[in-house]
């Protein structure tokens, strides 16, 4: 499980300490890779991450993911961090950063 992210870091979340790294295959869209990583910062909500990527916690441990597209908590309030559980909708200001 633990280890150093091999690919290029593409996003990190301060509230939960996780980072997202493109896998070797997912890092270079210019080289004709059909599945580059895309990160969408949902206003007031999570980071929506699609493509060929891995998620690591603050200690560099790989976080297993259960689905192709994931939503990463940005508000810090999720009970299933690093994933979003919709809690930002109950907070006055949603996620801190857009």
């Amino acid at each position, binding site marked *: 499980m633990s280890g150093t992210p091999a690919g290029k870091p593409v996003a990190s979340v301060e509230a939960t300490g996780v980072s997202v790294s493109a896998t070797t295959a997912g890092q270079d869209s210019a080289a004709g890779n059909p599945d580059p990583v895309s990160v969408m910062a*949902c*206003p007031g909500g*999570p980071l929506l991450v699609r493509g060929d990527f891995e998620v690591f916690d603050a200690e560099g441990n790989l976080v297993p993911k*259960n689905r*192709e597209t994931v939503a990463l908590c940005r508000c810090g309030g999720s009970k299933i961090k690093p994933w979003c559980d*919709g*809690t930002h*909708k109950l907070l006055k200001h949603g996620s801190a950063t857009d």
Partner: protein
Amino acid sequence: MLLPAPRGALTSALLDALLAGADAAPETLGQLTAAGESALAAASDLLRDDDVQLALFCLYELHYSGLEGVDPAMEWEPELIRLRRTLEAAFEATLRNIVPVPAAPEPDAEAVAQTLFGLAAEDDGPSVSRFIARSATEDQLREFLILRSVYQLREADPHSWAIPRLPVGRAKAALVEIQADEYGGGRPERMHSHLFARTMAGLGLDTRYGYYLDRIPALVLASSNAMSLFGLNRRLRGSIAGHLAAFEMTSSIPNSFYAKGFRRAGFGPDVTFYFDEHVEADAVHEQIAARDLAGGLAEAEPELLPDILFGAAAVLTLDALQGEFQLAAWKGNESALRTAAPDPHPAAAALAADAAAAGVSP
């Protein structure tokens, strides 16, 4: 689907015609629409009318898994389609009349997403999820699963009708992305409908589709019928997209409460996994559904925006009505289910007898 018992003159005539199939007398089929019109004329509250909602539910079922003992060719019998359109027109008119639709923003994906999130956030309908979390008894948990099973045992199917009806582009890609996850991402054991069946089995419930149909109130059938209405009519593709968006937006937080309720009652991960999975999955899906599906569709076909909002608002209205009725029953220590039908359709009894004779447990 297992055959339900009739709930009035219309469903009685309809079930007879369905079972007769190709052998049905032309005049029997020809009289169905008149029977539908009579039932509509007699209905004081269409959403709670057992005969009309069950008839519509059975007519839609022809397009899903079919009804046990009914010739699959009946799916496209013109007289059945005519009856369906008569009932649908009245049902849609009722929904358009009672569902408050918010003012439309600009047809811009982010503006549409924010309007939908705002709509869901303002929803202050009765909280079945909090009741489940805090106080539902084991029998009430079982009733909750039975009521949900009408949709959840075929979770995602009504929205799949929209796939070929959306234009190539962002909205269609988003819908397929969500549906792929709903259907387990290629892993049948992770299909949401399968996970729900596992939860039901964990409480000793029968997971065959339609097994509890006779106990399901009209209002719950109406919710399911609304999805089929939106999904099976191409002109309403905006409404099925909006429906899915609102459905996903009102899911992750309630599901965390449901999981809490079943854990409180002592059930383990085999039962709660369905709910836990939905907390995570629907927090993803709501973002995709709001921005890319509903928002993307509004950008591609701006004339659909009012229907997108109508479909979304319909979820909240129907959920609130159901929640109100369920909580009133449970708080009064009454069942939220219909009383079991005293007279099952003779054909259903015959099928059960055949099954018993063949050694299949009913």
